[in-house]
């Protein structure tokens, strides 16, 4: 019996094409379950047959982590994309894992609610529509506004999971405050589909702020430390605090504020005034309305601003992409070291999580050396360096330890994987320690 025939009793299945490769590993079939039940039936067969399954949302971050050892089935979540519930008065929503974040944003905007997560992967993937909700959770998608609302892990309040053996289980619920049972939502957040298939997610929402403003400043490297220290300690409650720095240039700092109409503008003006002090950013400071100001207008005041500095476009070129973290006071040093190694960095200086990219082509040996030196620095600064993605030549030169660096608790993680997916059905080899 062909694989297709074997699996189509469970759900819709089609033969895979080259487009369905997972990080260079060819898949055999693509399955598209429409429910947790179908997912369960599919996985039961897969684990009984020893087939390897990789879950795919829009595929925008399918290369994150290490290439799987083998791929028999790509499990697409696209047919589980419905909005199950948007409880307006409770600021909570439940949706299928395949729900595109962009569509979710649209559906919630009528109530002026939002899931505060920034999609960093717009423009890549099968449907060119950014991340799906399930994919965002599985990759622990992290962006600027986590300074305001916390990382995605803190916004996930309930999950429905299907284990490799077909068990359908839920954890959490649909109330924000809930400590009944283990928080499996946190466990699967960032697990890259290696513990269970997430079929449905309940998230906490926030009201959209009536007004948003951005304060942009160009900061010479030697002043980055005092500027960030000033902003980190600010009582003006910024929603975002970002830094962007390219080798050889100045650092750009952007502060986002959101709140009441009028008061937000006044806070932004206040902050700009503070930043304009000599010894901080000086005169290259601008207050902009991100919805209405054009890049040209911004560049007029802050010469380097408005260049494409979304990770999204950089991801599209598939450079070496690192997640680098450090304690807050270590961010200026990390930025400096990254730039010295030819890395462009951007990310949340207010949280301590940055992304760094190395342009393509860079010789493999240089990439590896860079990863090693940056990792030594982040470890010293209380953080870590993870190679999220890289060109195939680099990836094949890295082992799991080179990809993830030191992983505190790795032995326990092995035991967790062995409990949840003993047959290594789900994305074998993709995660830390080659799990």
């Amino acid at each position, binding site marked *: 019996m062909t694989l297709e025939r074997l699996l189509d009793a469970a759900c819709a299945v089609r033969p895979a094409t080259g487009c369905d490769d997972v990080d260079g590993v060819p898949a055999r079939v693509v399955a598209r379950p429409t429910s947790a039940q179908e997912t369960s039936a599919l996985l039961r067969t897969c684990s009984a047959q020893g087939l390897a399954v990789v879950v795919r949302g829009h595929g925008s971050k399918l290369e994150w982590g290490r290439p799987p050892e083998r791929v028999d089935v790509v499990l697409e979540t696209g047919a589980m994309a419905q909005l199950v519930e948007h409880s307006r*008065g*409770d600021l909570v929503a439940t949706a299928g894992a395949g729900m595109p974040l962009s569509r979710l944003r649209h559906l919630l905007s009528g109530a002026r609610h939002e899931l505060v997560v920034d999609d960093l992967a717009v423009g890549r993937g099968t449907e060119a529509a950014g991340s799906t909700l399930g994919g965002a959770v599985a990759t622990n998608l992290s962006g600027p506004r986590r300074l305001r609302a916390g990382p995605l892990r803190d916004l996930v309040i309930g999950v429905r999971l299907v284990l490799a053996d077909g068990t359908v*289980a839920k954890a959490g619920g649909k109330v924000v*405050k809930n400590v*009944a049972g283990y928080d499996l939502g*946190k466990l699967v957040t960032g697990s890259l589909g290696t513990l269970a298939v997430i079929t449905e997610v309940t998230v906490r929402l926030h009201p959209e702020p009536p007004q948003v403003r951005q304060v942009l400043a160009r900061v010479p490297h030697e002043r980055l430390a005092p500027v960030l220290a000033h902003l980190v*300690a600010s009582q003006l409650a910024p929603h975002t605090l970002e830094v962007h720095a390219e080798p050889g240039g100045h650092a750009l700092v952007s502060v986002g504020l959101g709140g009441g109409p009028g008061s937000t503008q006044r806070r932004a003006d206040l902050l700009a005034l503070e930043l304009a002090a000599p010894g901080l950013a000086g005169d290259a400071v601008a207050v902009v309305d991100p919805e209405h100001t054009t890049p040209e207008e911004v560049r007029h005041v802050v010469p380097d601003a408005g260049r494409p500095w979304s990770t999204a476009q950089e991801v599209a070129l598939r450079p070496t992409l690192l997640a680098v973290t450090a304690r807050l006071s270590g961010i200026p040093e990390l930025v400096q070291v990254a730039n010295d190694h030819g890395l462009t960095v951007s990310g949340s200086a207010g949280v*301590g999580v940055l992304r760094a990219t190395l342009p393509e082509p860079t010789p493999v040996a240089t990439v590896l050396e860079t990863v090693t030196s940056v990792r030594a620095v*982040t470890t010293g600064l209380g953080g870590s360096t993870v190679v999220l993605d890289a060109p195939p030549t680099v990836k094949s030169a890295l082992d799991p330890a080179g990809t993830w660096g030191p992983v505190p*608790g790795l032995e326990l993680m092995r035991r967790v994987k062995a409990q949840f997916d003993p047959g290594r059905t789900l994305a074998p080899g993709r995660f830390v320690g080659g799990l």
Partner: protein
Amino acid sequence: MTQTDAQTGIRALLQDLRGVLPDHVLVTDPAERETYACDGLAAYRVRPALVVLVESADHVAQVVRSCARHHVPFVARGSGTGLSGGALPHADGVLVVTSRLRTLHEVRPQDQRAVVDPGVVNLAVSRAANPQGYYFAPDPSSQQICSVGGNVAENSGGAHCLKYGFTAGHVLSLEVVTPDGEQVTLGTEAPDPPGYDLLGAFVGSEGTLGVATRATLRLTRLPEDVRTCLAGFASTDEAGAATSAIIAAGIVPAAMEIMDALAIEAAEAAVSCGYPEGAGAVLVVELDGPALEVEGELEQVRRICREQRAVEFRTATDAAERAEIWRGRKSAFAAVGRISPDYIVQDGVVPRTALPEVLREMGRISADRGVRVANVFHAGDGNLHPLVLFDADEEGATGRAEEVSGMILDLCIAHGGSITGEHGVGADKARYMPRMFGPADLDTMQLLRCAFDPDGLANPGKIYPTPRMCGERPRVVHAADEPGVDGAEVF
């Protein structure tokens, strides 16, 4: 395990420990052990076989390793203020008490971090950080005595977690002793450590995955401005409607608390807090943040409360008045003790929008059964704290109160809520877990436990009513491990 097995286990363990731990940390005297028989939920009492007042992480590791070797269960205890019997000892086990681990290692405002031992009292962290402009946001009402280790284990909340979130969002890394006695670090000082989020899973695991021996905490910047106001309403319906309207207006207050008539009466009798006379409910709203924002939000809250027919609205103008408003709310639990000899505190959660209906149904149950229920609750997140009043000396009263309490939890579940918002499942609510979760859900959660604790020695009998067999290593289920409460005497 038979009685003699258990005794042999403890004896062998004591022999191990006598050589390596100082004598004064081992509490063997029965009367002294008896003082640890219960936590904040005094209805359940079990005298532990041995108490160890650990003085270092190494002590913890030695005790736990020895427990693993001799197959003796252990239970961690912080300050013992838990309200779900989480720190209820095991009759044949060791109670590991962390209250001597009180070192506050570092406060680093520039990194927004504090590093503390597990026995450090919650409020001590904020006290140490306040002079530098920071505080530790999770603020359980017990914060003057409860420990950070207990907060971590329970994922504790507090009035202000409406805006600032629970303990889970404020812990960056933990050093833990796993049930096999290994010392492991989960997480890094920066967020997003590589690998599975075991830290996130450990927080809230109620001592069933190991013992936390050190925590790196996130500190939060003190807000520029804090405004507290109080509105009196004719009934909880209107107070609830005002709560919903405030949320619908896009405001996220730092805290939103409601007390009903009975709770007001109790608080008034205890601390004469001067709440509006004859009010059927009071709503306390606290707003914090940049002064420029808070001012506008306060105006909106005032307008909304008027629209919802508040009979009175007052705003604290200084810290003393703010404390005055909070005094009634904070004294509520203790105050209820003055109008009733005994009470059960429940901790169910309902979607905020279901509050009015649930409160009405609760009123009906209360009237129907002739059991008084006072309500004090975190209205902003739908976390109820019904206080079910009874007199244990009265024939059948305890049973009636427990029945009402169970009916309230069923009500919460029926409305899509939870049996516990912040106090934990512990020994007390394990039997309600199957009403909220199916067998597959509970089994799946326990896979995590199997990974950490295949032999089921860490705080057995808590959270899950039936232990799961762990893979290749089927284990004998001890009678005493079954629901923890069954082994306990219930008063």
